């Protein structure tokens, strides 16, 4: 473990979910530039992580009856955590999580409309595993998370779960419904300050008729198909004028069109907002906060450069991410440990670093409720409150308690691993600081960790002592503020 460039660990904490010893060895051998390529160009690695669910050597899942991640939301949550821990494409999972937060759609509202099983399908089903080839929203995101942002927004505008979540299915010319049109501008693209209330009303009219269709083969069909359907009869055909340019020539008006052609209104508006400079800058800033730093603001030159690259390359997210991860700002040591880990990052990383033998991600799913992040259930359309927003007394207790749970589950493995260093408490501490990669402890906190090891008796390094002090130490480290930062 030791000897690898700290920049590799930093890269994997950000572009992935931390590193297991095997991952650290693999990416360390590649070296930084090749590691970035391997993470970004992940298509070279098999997309087969789900095949290992339930296999020995992997973190386990807990099913009530059959494990059914396409129709039972708790199982979908377990599958996603499993992928975060084990995927050979960590950046794919990270980007999927990033966009899940960006297009924050909550399962519960979809379940209110179509029931628990279909709502899980609409959020999480893999088309290849669904009897009706239904693809859940987050699977769509996973497939498109590094493609064109324009294509991604269009896919989200047509996504059945989104059409339920933001009530697009009720948006008709008789009664335009503002929910989606507002959030498209406020949250999905340019942000507050760049559009007006009358733009919201116009955007609502633009998307009139964007609906979904549910097709069942009969009353007994347990897997009806939900798909986007443009309903021309519901579309409002008059021209729509905005306060910002919608078209490349600067025109602010979407022309009046026949109802049959009216779906183009929405495509035009999406194209307009994704190509708006404020959208580019907002996206770059959000990516900076998720991948580079929440404590240090992005330099103007960084925002300009990446925003320009986004605008000049058809909103290509893979190109954006490659530039970001290769940038001097990303590599700058001043940006190490300057991000508050999301609960999903914290859970996956600690499992990779502490170990997962005999542990079920189901226990993580329940602790994540108290940490403040339930996958497929963002609190509202703005997504999770990040940065210091993750930090609360209850949230910190939940992280501490998760650390207690995994350190207890890994006693034997941790004790065996540290035995070669068990002669002195300093060596034990040094081993775990290296293995668990917390941000640096100041002298006083380091002294506390050191004194914990001998607080209840002189150091002997006996099995009995190790079996008490090792999980206790791991609990203290993983539950500390220093570990929270990535």
């Amino acid at each position: 473990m030791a000897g690898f460039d700290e920049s590799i660990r930093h890269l994997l904490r950000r572009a992935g979910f931390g590193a297991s010893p095997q991952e650290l060895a693999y990416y360390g051998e590649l070296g930084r530039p090749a590691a970035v390529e391997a993470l970004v160009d992940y298509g070279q690695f098999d997309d087969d992580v789900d095949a290992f669910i339930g296999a020995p050597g992997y973190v386990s899942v807990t099913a009530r009856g059959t494990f059914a991640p396409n129709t039972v939301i708790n199982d979908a949550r377990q599958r996603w955590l499993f992928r975060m821990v084990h995927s050979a494409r960590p950046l794919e999972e990270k980007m999927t999580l990033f966009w899940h937060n960006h297009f924050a759609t909550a399962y519960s509202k979809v379940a209110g409309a179509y029931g628990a099983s279909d709502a899980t399908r609409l959020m999480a089903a893999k088309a290849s595993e669904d009897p009706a080839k239904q693809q859940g929203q987050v699977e769509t995101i996973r497939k498109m998370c590094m493609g064109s942002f324009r294509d991604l927004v269009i896919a989200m505008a047509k996504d059945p779960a989104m059409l339920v979540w933001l009530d697009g299915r009720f948006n008709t010319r008789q009664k335009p419904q503002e929910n989606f049109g507002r959030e498209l501008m406020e949250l999905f693209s340019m942000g507050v300050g760049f559009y007006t209330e009358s733009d919201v009303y116009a955007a609502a009219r633009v998307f009139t008729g964007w609906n979904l269709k549910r097709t069942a083969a009969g009353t007994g069909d347990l897997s009806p198909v939900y798909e986007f359907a443009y309903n021309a009869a519901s579309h409002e055909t008059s021209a729509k004028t905005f306060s910002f340019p919608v078209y490349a020539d600067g025109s602010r008006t979407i022309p009046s069109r026949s109802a049959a052609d009216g779906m183009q209104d929405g495509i035009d508006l999406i194209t307009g907002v994704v190509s708006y400079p404020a959208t580019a800058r907002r996206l770059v800033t959000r990516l900076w906060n998720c991948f580079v730093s929440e404590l240090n603001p992005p330099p103007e030159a960084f925002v300009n450069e990446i925003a320009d690259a986004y605008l000049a390359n058809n909103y290509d997210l893979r190109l954006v991410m490659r530039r970001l991860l290769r940038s001097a700002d990303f590599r700058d040591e001043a940006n190490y440990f300057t991000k508050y880990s999301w609960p999903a990052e914290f859970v996956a990383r600690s499992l990779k670093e502490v170990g997962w033998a005999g542990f079920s991600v189901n226990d993580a799913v329940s602790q994540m409720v108290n940490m403040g992040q339930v996958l497929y259930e963002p609190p509202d359309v703005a997504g999770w409150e990040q940065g210091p927003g993750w930090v609360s007394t209850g949230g910190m207790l939940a992280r501490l308690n998760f650390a207690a749970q995994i350190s207890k589950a890994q006693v034997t493995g941790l004790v065996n691993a540290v035995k070669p260093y068990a002669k002195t408490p300093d060596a034990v501490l040094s081993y775990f600081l290296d293995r668990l990669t917390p941000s640096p402890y100041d002298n006083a906190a380091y002294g506390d960790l050191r004194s914990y090891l001998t607080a209840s008796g002189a150091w002997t390094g006996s099995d009995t002592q190790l079996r008490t002090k090792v999980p206790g130490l791991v609990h203290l480290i993983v539950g500390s503020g220093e570990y929270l930062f990535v």
Partner: protein
Amino acid sequence: MAMTRREFLRNGAGAFTIGLAAPAFLAELARAQGAGSRSLVVLYFGGGNDALSTLVPYTDTFYYSRRPTIAIPAGDALQIGFDRGKTALGLHPRLTGLRAIFDDGRLGIIQRTGYENSSRSHFLGQDIWGSANPVNPQTNGWLGRYLDTLPSPVNPLVAWDALREVPRALMGDHVSVPAIALASAYTYASPNAGTEAALERSYTQRIASHVPADRPHLAFVNGSIDAAMNTLDKVALVTKYESSLTYPTSGLGVTMKTVAGAIAKGVGTKVFWVQLGGFDTHASETTAYPKLMTELNDAVSAFYSDLRSQGLLNQVLLMTFSEFGRRAYENGSVGCDHGAAGLMFVMGGAVRGGLYGTAASLNPDPKNPTLENSGGDVHYETDFRSVYARVADGWLGTDSTALLGGDFRRPDLAFI
């Protein structure tokens, strides 16, 4: 009702003031005693409450013409009389318990609360209501600023946030508010047992007690861990609270029982923050809204009765708000979109109940001064900061003009 001396001391003289013709000096005593142990419970209706379904202007014909499918039928509204503008008003039919509290004179309803140029964004709206600063809403919260004025050392449980994240309203410079969404899960686990577990707990706190000056973000996280450790035992005490009353098992019911427990156990909390979500009723309001009103009514009624039976009602002021009201007319999905002014409830033993302010006329005439946005949304009449000001001056005992950065006091808004 027999009461031992010990119970008298514990429950306070307030126990005598309800339902009995208590001697005047006892009532005074109760009030004076309450000053030191007053609690404010803020209940936030998340998502933008449709105030026109909460408090129904059931004789306004425009109410029915503009809301043909979502209007509450006149015959169903729980009539509570007229406001000073002579508009007849009724509560949502599910609010039977709140009506009873209104009849007790302990529920105030402040109509058309809001502010100029009301934001239709949930998030900006929350920040504005939280900071009490429409111009610069990305600042500390109005209650956080209040907590910052309290003399040190501050009780670590001086405020109790019943959410998983801390809302802007509670953000301050000095006091970090514990987030205790579920008191029963607010515990410290250890891989060890007995003295070793206790040792770990003490070391968790020792490590978190360091506040490195050059790493303010780490100091902030450590402050949260430290606050968690300092509040564990008191919260555990609250979880032992047994009420003689049955609370509903809904999320809000469980939370209100916990709040009552914290008040009854005397843990010294001055501000509670509670949320009921789901008010963003763009669609299917006729299904969703009655459920919300039931959850609200049953939880708050139980809370009220519980406190009253223990003589604690005079120690509590409950105040509700939402980030905006909803549109005057319905949309095509049996719901309504984001609007402007809403309403606020205030409830407690010291509240002067009744209707404050005047209802909007829903006449769509663009010149109708009680509406805005071309007759689409309800225009505010009472600046929400005037309500905050009354709470600050009349309940929290802090100077509202300093707290709110301006004079929002309104003598006619004497609900407490």
